[in-house]
């Protein structure tokens, strides 16, 4: 009953399975993609999601600064807007930013950053900077863009935080963690759901009973307090990598139950099909029947429902990390970045809310994409 678009009463699962097997006789993925492409908003949102993943995964190359680097002189700097125009000494127009003049307020002694409209700092492309490894193998120091740091130039496109760390770079690096956390969480969900659901549905009997009881127990446990309890149980002494994997497991181990039920239901109806029996008579092993003959029948459904699970995980990570229960610095994730956003800091430094914008954009486009995929996977669509 989690699927809001399905009619209130499902058909008996056996009947549904049979019709589906008929419609999806061959390459259901192609059919699904054809329908998906017609769903314009979802199709474009899928591109946005893809772009977000590409940008955030190549943060080492795109981000101009090291996310942990502290610029003592540039604390809480407002965003330096990217502009396009002529920079002296160069004939063609190019991208530039206006630099800031650092002044100390004579009375309050606070730092005041005044935009210097006269001078222009051109962005340089493929500059040398901190070293990183391409695909984790080939060492390089090239970055997509940057400025002449030795001449004291800066380009904080999205401002800096309370420690003078570049907001743009941190959002990219944070995105890598947050987006990957959603993806790894879903992969674990996927493996657990398919394995346990498949076994439960295919073999039935006492194994089925045991697995279904566990699923029932997990499903009747309210999510938020259990998340909090598990997140609070992560020892403080763990390294950030261990915490990261623990968080992924926490998020995944609650989500797999729904998938397990779906897979079990499909399995129950499909294992009686003639082709399953034929495969078994031909001497195929049970794991081959399950994964080669049965699972592909409802793969498109699973992909759709999983794509709707990713944004939920990203939101959960953000909330938990914001409360200080999830990931902790020095790991940078969107939730960790938002720890800096308090009522007092936002009033003066609105740009500290930008990571939230990244979260909203991601979740929004993922939801759109997931909705579209689900509609496309539904054989009763049009």
């Amino acid at each position, binding site marked *: *009953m989690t699927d*809001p*678009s399905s*009619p*209130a*009463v499902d058909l*008996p*699962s056996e009947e549904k399975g049979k019709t589906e097997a008929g419609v999806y006789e061959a390459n259901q993925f192609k059919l699904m993609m054809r329908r998906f492409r017609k769903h314009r908003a979802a199709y474009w949102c899928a591109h946005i999601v893809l772009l977000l993943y590409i940008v955030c995964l190549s943060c080492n190359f795109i981000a101009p600064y090291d996310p942990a680097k502290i610029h003592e002189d540039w604390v809480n700097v407002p965003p330096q807007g990217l502009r396009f125009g002529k920079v002296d000494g160069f004939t063609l127009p190019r991208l530039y930013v206006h630099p800031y003049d650092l002044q100390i307020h004579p009375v309050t002694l606070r730092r005041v950053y005044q935009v210097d409209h006269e001078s222009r700092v051109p962005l340089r492309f493929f500059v040398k900077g901190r070293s990183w490894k391409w695909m984790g193998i080939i060492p390089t120091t090239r970055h997509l863009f940057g400025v002449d740091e030795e001449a004291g130039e800066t380009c904080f496109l999205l401002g800096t935080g309370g420690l003078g760390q570049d907001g743009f770079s941190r959002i990219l690096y944070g995105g890598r963690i947050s987006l990957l956390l959603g993806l790894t969480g879903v992969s674990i969900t996927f493996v657990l759901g398919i394995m346990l659901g498949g076994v439960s549905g295919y073999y039935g009997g006492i194994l089925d009973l045991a697995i279904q*009881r566990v699923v*029932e*127990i997990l499903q*009747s*446990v*309210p999510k*938020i*307090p*259990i998340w*909090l*309890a*598990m997140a*609070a*149980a*992560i*020892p403080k002494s763990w390294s950030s990598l261990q915490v990261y994997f623990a968080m992924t497991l926490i998020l995944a181990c609650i989500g797999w139950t729904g998938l397990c039920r779906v897979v079990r239901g499909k399995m129950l109806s499909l294992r009686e099909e003639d082709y399953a029996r034929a495969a078994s008579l031909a001497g195929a092993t049970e794991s081959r029947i399950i994964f080669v003959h049965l699972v592909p029948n409802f793969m498109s459904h699973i992909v759709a429902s999983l794509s709707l699970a990713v*944004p939920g995980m990203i*939101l959960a990570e*953000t*909330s938990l990390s*914001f*409360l200080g*229960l999830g990931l902790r610095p020095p790991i940078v994730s969107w939730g960790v970045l*938002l720890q800096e*956003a*308090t*009522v007092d800091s*936002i*009033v003066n430094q609105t740009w500290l*809310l930008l990571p*939230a914008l990244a*979260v*909203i954009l991601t*979740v*929004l486009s993922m*939801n*759109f994409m997931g909705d579209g995929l689900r509609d496309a996977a539904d054989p009763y669509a049009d």
Partner: protein
Amino acid sequence: MMLRYIFQRLMIAIPTLLAISFVVFFLIQLPPGSFLDAKIAAMELEGGVDMAEIETLKNTYHFDRPMIVQYYYWITGFVTGDMGKSFETDVEVTRTLAELVPVTAAISLFTIFFTWSLAIPFGITAAVKRNTPLDYLLTFVGLTAMATPAFIIALIFQVVMQSIWPQFDPTGLISREYANAPWSLAKFADLLKHLWVPVFILGVGGTAGMIRILRANVIDELKKQYVLCARARGMHPVKVILKYPVRVAINPLVSGIGSILPSIISGSMIISIVLGLPTLGPRVLQALMSQDTYLAASCVFIQCVLAVVGILISDLLLAVVDPRIKFGGK
């Protein structure tokens, strides 16, 4: 038939709940060390360790016994209504609950009321006027609200309030001058003045989600032939919609009542922590962090009980609302 069904469900629920209680207790005990270790460490910092006090604590709460024994003491106490005391404050868990649950429940019930009274008309409107600018606006606002974490809505709300209404403090539930005053009409009015903030913030996300569910369901129903038939017979268009499709489309909301029950206590958790509301959420979080086992386990377990009962209630209600669903059958 119905009584037998309820009985059957209850029989299944009891072992389920026992298993859940064990999982919850185990989970809370999972972090290394215990409250006692932390207490001894704190005493060492302050100077001498009072061995006598440690001994009493150990004896009352069975810290030296294995976990399974501690669990046994807790669950037997829980069943008889004695939930033990909080290690930290030495206050009975039942008293803490009696203090915090009414406020928590009030916030949640108001939120549910707010959500439903907005979502039902808007959801139906969006479905009937689908693919019009109004529908697009509702869909866009709804999706954005759903994609925004609740704590961000709370933050933005606080910042906006600070600039347009600086005298108003959106955090907390009761103004300082009433904090220790006995309950009176003025205090109640003060509570109401603060209550709408969490209700609004919590309601925004929930309303958005519900509008989308309702819209999808009503659209599904509008395509059905009985709607066409009713229209052809010359029934008033508004009546057609309210009488047939809406009645079917409301089913998922009815089945959602079950999930509302546990959320009456846990729904406002994150927002309460952000806004500093005196509800169960922040208290449970603190108890979890300091391994205040009895308090944390009792609170989390009560929510689990509510969840199990809630699922049962929603199954029963669904059968009442939708006569096509039969008890026990699949």
